[in-house]
Structure formats: C-alpha cells, structure tokens
C-alpha cells in the first residue's frame, strides 16, 4: 500500500476532483458555438496535461487530429462555399468539438485509480449508493471491451458477422453480438459481486479508504485555467 501511495504522489499529480472540474468546464462545448482559437487553446491545454501524465503519444495523436481537422475546415471554408462540400464542414465541426471532451475524459480515466476516485467521491459527500455502482462501472468497462474483442474473434472464426451480410440483417448481427456479451458480463458480474461481498463490502459500517486525496498547487493552477475556459465557452 505504501508503495502505491508513493507512486501516485510522485511527479505530476492532480486531485480527481479538479479533473472532474475540467470535464465539467468543457460541458458547454457541444451545445454552444465556440470560436476556433478558444477550441485550439483548450486542446493544447489538455494535450499538455496528458503529456505531463506521461501519455505523450495519445496527446500528440489528438492534437494532430485536431490540427488536421482545423486545416481542412479552413481550406474548405475558403475555397468552397456551396454544395455538398458543406457537409464536410459539418462533420469536422462535430468531431472537432468532441475532441476536447474525449481528451478531458482520458485525462481523468488514465490517471485516476479506483481508490483515489472512491476517496474523492466520498469527500464530495456523494451518497454511498451512487459511489459503488460508479466504481463497478469503471472496473467493468475494460472487461466488456475484452469480451467484445473475444466475441468478434469467435465470430470471425465461424465466418459470421463481418461483411455485407451483417449490415443487411442488423437484427441478426445484433443478436449474435449482444447475447454472448450480456451472458458473459452477467456471469463475470456475479463473480465480482461474490468476491466483493466475501471481502466485507456489504458490511453495515462506514467505509474508510487508505488512499489520501487533497488539493495542491497544480490543482489550483488547473482549476484557474478551467474557470477561464468555462467563462470563454459560456459567455
């Protein structure tokens, strides 16, 4: 336990709550119109955060994607103003707006351990009834992903599910993928629940957490920047 604490505290570390604030400040993006320079600033800021958390490759990938989209948009905007080309702008506009949302979610998911999140949520006075399902969900996403890959492999092996046929009968391909996905997930879930209960999760006491969370100076910096973005986006 000591070891893990040291590992998380070393280097650049943000409180989960400030990461949540970043995400919330980006929330207005999808519904409101934002000018390109604000959007670019946000993407650069999130890219730096990702880099500081040692996810340089995905940061670069996102920033490059954004730059390419912006470039395409500017080119199309200048040279083509009518006709079906407008739809390209619609598409880039949509994807462009989602990039910051995805990036801020990634900052959160990649750098937050489950116990850190539990501790932070408990200190935000989120009811226990909400915390537990949230933790299960976060623990479960990778499992579902794994099962999904296995199912796709199995389908490939049987020669079903890819190509024109699966597109033409969406109901059947849905059945082929959904049924095994649900069955395996439910089974895994039952095991998870049994193992958690034997470790005393259902005990009627207040739970404590060995993981300490707290704000420090990078948090205040990040919160300040997020506040500026919030103002820029909303007003």
């Amino acid at each position, binding site marked *: 336990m000591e070891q893990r604490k040291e590992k998380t505290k070393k280097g650049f570390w943000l409180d989960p709550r400030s990461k*949540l604030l970043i*995400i*919330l400040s*980006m*929330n*207005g*993006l*999808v*519904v*409101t*119109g*934002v000018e390109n320079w604000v959007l670019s600033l946000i993407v650069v800021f999130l890219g730096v955060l990702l880099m500081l958390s040692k996810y340089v490759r995905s940061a670069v990938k996102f920033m490059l994607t954004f730059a390419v989209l912006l470039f395409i948009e500017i080119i199309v905007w200048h040279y083509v103003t*009518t006709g079906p080309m*407008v*739809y390209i*702008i*619609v*598409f880039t*506009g*949509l*994807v462009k707006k*989602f990039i910051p*949302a*995805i990036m801020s*979610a990634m900052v*959160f998911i990649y750098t937050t351990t489950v116990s850190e999140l539990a501790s932070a949520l408990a200190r935000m006075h989120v009811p226990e*009834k*909400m915390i*537990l*399902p*949230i*933790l*299960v*969900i976060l623990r*479960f*996403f990778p499992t*579902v*992903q794994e099962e*999904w890959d296995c199912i796709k492999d199995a389908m490939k092996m049987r020669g079903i599910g890819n190509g024109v046929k699966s597109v033409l009968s969406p*109901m059947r391909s*849905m*059945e082929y993928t*959904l*049924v095994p*996905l*649900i*069955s395996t*997930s*439910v*089974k*895994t*879930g039952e095991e*998870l*629940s049994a193992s*958690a*209960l034997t470790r005393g*999760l*259902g005990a009627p006491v207040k739970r404590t957490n060995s993981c300490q969370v707290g704000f420090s100076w990078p948090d205040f910096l990040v919160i300040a920047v997020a506040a500026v973005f919030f103002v820029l986006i909303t007003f």
Partner: protein
Amino acid sequence: MKNKNRIQAKDLITVGIFTAIMMVVRIISSFLGVIPIVNAIITVPVCIAVGPVYMLFLTKVKKMWMITIMAGITGIFMSVFGWAWFCAAIALVCGLIADFITKLGNYQSYKLGLAGYCVYSLWWIAPVLPVWFQPGFLDNMRESMGAEFVQAYSTLMPIWMLPVLIVVTIISALIGGLLGKRMMKKHFVRSGIA
C-alpha cells in the same frame, strides 16, 4: 429481515454491471449519429439495441430506486463524456418515473416494465432539445456549420417534430422491449441467467 427491502451492496453491484453494459451498447449503437441528420432520430437504433439489456436488468430488479440510480448514473456519465448537463437531470426524472411505473407491478409485471422502459427511453430526446428551447442555438450553429445547413436543419426540425420524436422513441422502445422478451425466452432463461 428488516433490511430485506433496502438496497444492499449486491444490488448496487448489479446496477453497476448493467449500467456499464447498457452504456457500451448505447455508445456502439449511437455511432450512427455521426451522420448529421440521423442524430435527430438516434433514439431509434439506441432504444432497440438497449431494450434486451434493460429487460434482463428488470429481472434482477426487485427493489425501489435501482432504476433511478441506474438512470442517474447513466446521465452523469453521459454529461461527463460531453453531453449537456441538463441531460443528466432529465435522465434522472425519467428514471424516477420509470421506477414508479415498474413498482406498480411490484417489479414482476412485464407490461408495466415495458411501459417503464418507454418512459425511461424518452430522455434520449434530451440532446436534441436545445434546437427548440435554447435561444440562440441556431445562430451558434450558423456560425460553426454554415447558413445552408441551418436552413436545411430548421426545415427538417420544426416544433411539431417534438411529439413525433416522442412517438417514434416510444415505438422503438416497444420494439426493443419485445425483442428483449424474445431474446430472454430464446437465450437467457435457457442458460439460466435470467
């Protein structure tokens, strides 16, 4: 014995698992929404695909608040991943109503469960709402997407589209629920997980 009707850790884990599955199914089926016009009727594929999962979830639900918690958490996650904040509020309300409807049948009745699912599905309209109710939304869109697109969009989406959308959503939720029942009979009851 007193605790029998209260939610316990096991129920919360069940809620978590099913919420996760539903969210994954949702995200996969809503990829169609990348096509601009389709995102108005994105409720159709989503409601149909989520139906079976929801129906299986209902067989595990025996207590009040489980559906509400599921809806609330789904809403929160969707807001975190870039939807507007009011979607979470609408999801919570829809989940609460669905919970009450399902409770009328003591969490046993299939028909009331299906009705609950229809109500719960309605929150999927939430992301489209700003088109009508947020002043200046179309102007913003004009800036970012071009006047022509907005013209096309607003002729496609007059205010009477709202009731149409509601009806379409309810119908696709019904299809999803019926599909869920069929799948349950065919697969889940037989393999012993329902």
